Every structure is written in structure tokens, then in C-alpha cells.
């Protein structure tokens, strides 16, 4: 029996060889840095200077760090706003695109354009568009006698300004994915539901959506991960302000490491973020699997 094992390994050597580079890069650029971050999270010191082991002190400090709590709340506020928005708007536009016969490819390509631009460029353009006094959006609102909001200076709306920019850029991904999902639902099933007397809405709810479940689950998981990792647009548009009103978890990590030179605290925040993402992903998958089982 023992002599069989090397034989099996040898038999699958091509497969192992093929995945080896991938595994190496995964380890070198993901697993090893993550382990290093975990080690750093138990240390105190500066980025370049010496570090000392402090046990769980960094984690205990996080609990009473008002800024981090605010950043977590802001991130959650952003997440619960942006995810329903991309799902509802993305699905409505995908359904509209799916229902038209002519120029569908043109619209699909046209709507995909924002995704091709980098988020930094998109954020800079949006920043100029909505400048409170000089921006074209504010000027148009001025002509219409509608008072332009202080997009970046009003702490109550600044996070929604970021949602708007992220929505503009991120929506095409969901539209195209949902459209692909809609087109993969067998036409016969939809027609059969109509024959059985189902309305358009009932057919959508009981035939189309259940068939799209894998795609919807994938999109939900990815949207959650991306939302929790929000950084680029905050960096370009607000730098966390005014007064931390748009500070997110990743912004807080960046600020602690590069501005405050607190590498241990930043690393412990990274670990918290990874745990948060894992928990949210696990809950998402559990809930959708539970619903799948209910449907079956």
C-alpha cells in the first residue's frame, strides 16, 4: 500500500507542476504577507524602526479606538447603501437590456465603458463635476434654482457622494453579469410559466431569479468584499474627511501606517478586516445555501 502513494504523486506530476507556479505566487504574495501581518499585529513600533512584542495590546486598543469604530460604521453604512443599489439598478437595467431586440450589443458596450476607466480617474473627474461652486453639476442645479449640496463638506452626505461615484463605475459589472445570467435562463421554462398563467413579475420571481441564484450569490459575495475594501475613491475624493465622516476601515489602516507610523495598530486592523470579510462572506453563502435548500 505504502508504495502506491509515490506512484499516485508521480502519476499526477503534470497537474502538480502546472499548479506549482500559481501556488508559489499565491504563497509569496498572499499567504506569506498575511502571516507577516498577523505577526506585526502583535508588535508595537514604527514602520522602519525596531518593534517589540506586545501580545494582544493592539487588539484591545482597537476596541476603544473611536476612529476605528467610526470607520467601521462608515464602511457598513456604505456597504448597506451600495449593495442594494447595485443589485436593484443593475437588475432593472439588465432586464431592460434583455427585453430589447435591437442595438443590445451597442448598449451593452456603451454601458460597460465606466468599468474600463480606473477608479482614480473616475473619482478625479467626478470631483470636478460636483465641485460645490465651480462644478458643472452645481452650476446646472444653480440654473434650476436648486441649492447644490456641499458634496464633500457636509458630513451627512459625503458617504453618499462616494456611493454615487462607486455606483457609476461599478454598476456596469453587475449589469453585464446579470444580463448574462438572464440570458442563460432557458426560454422554455419562462414560456411554460406563462402558459401556466404566471404574470411577468411572478415568472421573474419564481423562475428567472431562482435560476440565477449562482450568479446572484457570486455578485453578492464580491460586492460585499469590494465594499468592505473601499479605499481608492476615499483617498482621491475626501481623504477620510470632513472630520472622519468618510473614513473607512482601509483608509484607517493607511492613515495609521503611513501617517501615524503605527504599524502594529495598522496590522491588527488588517486582521480585523480580513475576519470581517470572512464572516460576511460566510453569512452570505450560508443564507443563500439555506434559501436554495428551502426552494428544493
Amino acid at each position: 500500500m505504502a508504495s502506491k502513494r509515490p506512484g499516485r504523486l508521480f502519476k499526477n506530476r503534470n497537474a502538480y507542476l502546472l499548479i506549482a507556479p500559481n501556488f508559489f505566487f499565491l504563497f509569496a504574495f498572499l499567504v506569506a504577507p498575511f502571516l507577516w501581518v498577523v505577526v506585526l499585529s502583535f508588535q508595537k513600533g514604527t514602520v522602519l524602526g525596531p518593534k517589540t512584542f506586545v501580545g494582544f495590546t493592539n487588539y484591545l486598543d482597537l476596541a476603544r479606538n473611536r476612529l476605528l469604530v467610526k470607520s467601521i460604521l462608515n464602511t457598513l453604512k456604505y456597504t448597506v447603501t451600495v449593495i442594494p443599489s447595485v443589485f436593484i439598478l443593475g437588475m432593472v437595467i439588465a432586464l431592460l437590456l434583455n427585453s430589447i431586440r435591437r442595438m443590445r450589443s451597442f448598449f451593452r458596450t456603451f454601458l460597460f465603458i465606466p468599468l474600463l476607466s480606473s477608479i482614480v480617474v473616475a473619482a478625479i473627474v467626478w470631483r470636478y463635476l460636483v465641485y460645490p461652486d465651480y462644478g458643472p453639476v452645481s452650476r446646472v442645479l444653480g440654473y434650476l434654482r436648486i441649492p447644490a449640496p456641499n458634496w464633500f463638506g457636509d458630513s451627512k452626505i459625503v458617504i453618499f457622494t462616494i456611493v454615487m461615484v462607486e455606483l457609476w463605475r461599478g454598476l456596469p459589472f453587475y449589469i453585464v453579469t446579470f444580463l448574462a445570467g438572464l440570458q442563460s435562463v432557458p426560454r422554455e421554462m419562462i414560456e411554460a410559466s406563462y402558459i401556466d398563467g404566471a404574470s411577468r413579475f411572478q415568472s421573474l420571481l419564481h423562475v428567472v431569479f431562482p435560476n440565477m441564484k449562482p450568479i446572484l450569490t457570486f455578485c453578492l459575495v464580491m460586492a460585499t468584499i469590494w465594499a468592505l475594501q473601499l479605499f481608492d475613491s476615499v483617498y482621491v475624493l475626501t481623504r477620510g474627511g470632513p472630520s472622519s465622516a468618510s473614513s473607512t476601515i482601509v483608509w484607517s489602516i493607511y492613515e495609521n501606517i503611513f501617517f501615524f507610523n503605527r504599524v502594529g495598530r495598522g496590522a491588527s486592523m488588517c486582521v480585523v478586516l480580513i475576519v470581517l470579510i470572512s464572516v460576511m462572506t460566510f453569512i452570505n453563502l450560508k443564507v443563500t445555501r439555506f434559501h436554495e435548500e428551502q426552494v428544493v
Partner: protein
Amino acid sequence: MKNMKRFTVLITIAVLVFCMASAFAAEKKAVIRVWKGPHSPDDTGVFADVIKAFEAENKGATVEYTPTPWDTINEKYTTAFASKNPPDIIYGFTGGYVDNVVGECYDFRDIFSKDEFAFIKKGVADSLLEETTVEGKLVSIPYFTAGAAFVYNVDLLKKAGFSKPPDTIEEQLAYAKKLTVDFDKDGKIDQYGYGQLSYDTAEAKPEFFLFSFGCNLFNKDMSGIDYDRPEGLEAFKYIDQLWNKDKTAVPVGLYPGTTMTDAFFDNKFAMWVTHNQIVAHLKDNPNFKIGVSKMPKGPGAGIAQGRGTYAGSGFWCIAKDTKNLQLVKKFVLKLYDPKYQKPIAVAFGFTPSNTQTVIQQDAIGKAFTDAALNFGVPYRFGPRVNEVKQAVWRAMQALQSGQLGPEDAWQQAVDEGKAALE
């Protein structure tokens, strides 16, 4: 066939010799990398002469000058030093910009000979050396002295009936009220009395409000904060008066980033505290009449006679990881040579820290210099400077944007400042 083989061997040897010669030549050519946050749209051009002179004297050596944007300076420098591939020379500045990395630079006393050190130190007051001393190491010698001053739009003040800038902070409130105007009576203010540098430019430095009331960010030995006194709260109440009660100051976020400068030249507000870099914009606005003066006097006589504003030194540091120390030292000596220091200082509107490098300044430059030399309150180096500074800025921003009242904002600044130093 035999000839072909010989030919191939010869070609191979020739290629190898060429490669080795190139590699040797490349090794001979030394590149000195210099990084500095820009103070002018043509920052590179300002250093052209000194670089040219250095390269002419040191054949095979080239200087690669890179202006590094201020808002990303911390991460750029930190990652470069952490990767052990830093620039050879960096421009440091008191103000929490490069605190992370100056500890990774040479002590000037260790690398320069007595004569060289005397040449660099010539004309620089001993008291200024505190600004370039980090944990007992003298990482540089001050090169420039620069800072902020009270800047105003002469025409707008004249139109409002003021022939001179406000002399006290009470007068400043009255000026701001009169200068805040809704011309078309549509309920939207068209011109504000007072403005402040945007927080997102990392240049806001609103702690001068604390200075006016006699408080600083840190106590003398930097072991604690200094604004946890009733005077600190008074500073927050003054900000509340300008922004929330009188509504005579530009709301936070109305002119984000550098548009604040455009707004000043567009007559959108009349007075503010800003840096000497404003002079670089004057050539684009030749008809604009700018006024520069010392800060309006506050009740806190303990700090800069109640007229305190931010000032600091700029200086050149040499990275310990440099591979061309001798050449780098030569270039630094060249930079500190009054012959080259003078035109560089003039181009940026700064004052050379070497008092023997005399420069001719116009009235605007002189006013900035006077503000920096007579009323400048410098930051000091320390691992927590940025964190305490940000705690104060964040609280002031919360007050100015109406998130918190003056008492709560001040308390937040105190709590966060103390927590940063724990």
C-alpha cells in the same frame, strides 16, 4: 565549417567583452537621486543650475531630481526606505512630513569633515539646529526658513472701507462680517470674509487659532499636549464664532483641494492664512493686489506675542543606504553653497537659514519672512506629531462643518491628543 565555428566564437567573445565593458561603464556612472516636495510649478528648473555645475565638476555623475507631491509624501518615502532603495537625498521639512524616515538618515557630524561641516553650518543660528535634531541625531542643517502669514485681497478690503488689515482677532471678526456679502440677495453667500486652506491639501495647519490664544500642540518636553487648558477651548469658541455663529468663513468642502487658491484670486473670499507658495500664483493674476501682514493679535501673548503662525525649516538629509556617499556629500555641499542657495531661495520665496546668504525681497516676500522669523511657531520632530496634529485638525473640522459644538470638539481634540501620546 571550421571558419564558421571560429567566426561564431569570435562574435561571442566580442559580445561578452562589449557587455562587460558596458556593465563596467554603467557601474562607473553614478546617479544621485534627489526627492523633494515641490514649492513651485517649475521645481525641477529651480535646481537646474546647481545640478549643471555639479555634473560639470564630477564627470560621470548625474543628478536625478524628482519632485514628490506633498499629499503622498509619507507613503512614498516610507516605502522607498523600507525597501532599502531610498533616494540618496531627501528634502525634509518640520511639519510631520518625513518624520517616518529622517531617522534613517546620516548624522551630518558623522559624515562631514570639520571644515565641510563648518561650511554648511556657517550663518545658521545654533537655536535652529533643534529643528533638524531627531532623537539626538543632527540629520541635517536648516536650509530654508518659511511659513505662513496673514494674506488678504487689498481691493476687497478697500471696497469694504478698510485701508489696512485687521490688527486683532476681534477686528478680524468685524472685518469678516463686513466682507461677507450676498450680492444678488438669493440667499447664497457670494463673497466670504474669511477662508482657510483645505484640509485635503494637508496644508491647512489651523492650529494657529490655538497659538492666538497662547496654546501650542505639545508642551515643552513633548510629553503631553498643551491645548488641554481653558485657552484651548477659547480658540475653539473663536472658530465657532467665525464659521457657525457669524457664518463669515468659507464652509468646509466648498472649495476642495487647491481650488481654495483659485477662489481667493476669484474674489470669493477676502482674508486667510496661507503659505509663501501663494506668490507663485501672482504671475497668473498680474492685476490682483495681494496684501501680506503679520497675524492679527490674539490674547495669548505667551506664544509669539499672540500672532503665532506656522513656520519651519527645510533641509537636506542623506539616506544611510546611499551607495555614493562621497558624491552625495559633494552635491549637498554644493546645495548649501550661498552661490546656489540664494537663487533657489529667491525662486521659492523662502528665506535662507544661513543669515549670510542675503537676498533681496519685495514687500510680499519680506512680509512672509518677517512673519516666519518673528512670529513663526515651528513643529518639532517626534513619532506622534502627525497623530496629535490630525486629532486637532479633525476636531476643528468637525466644529467648522457643524458636526460638533465648540466644547465637544475641543474635548474630542484633547481626548484624542492624549490617547495618541499614551
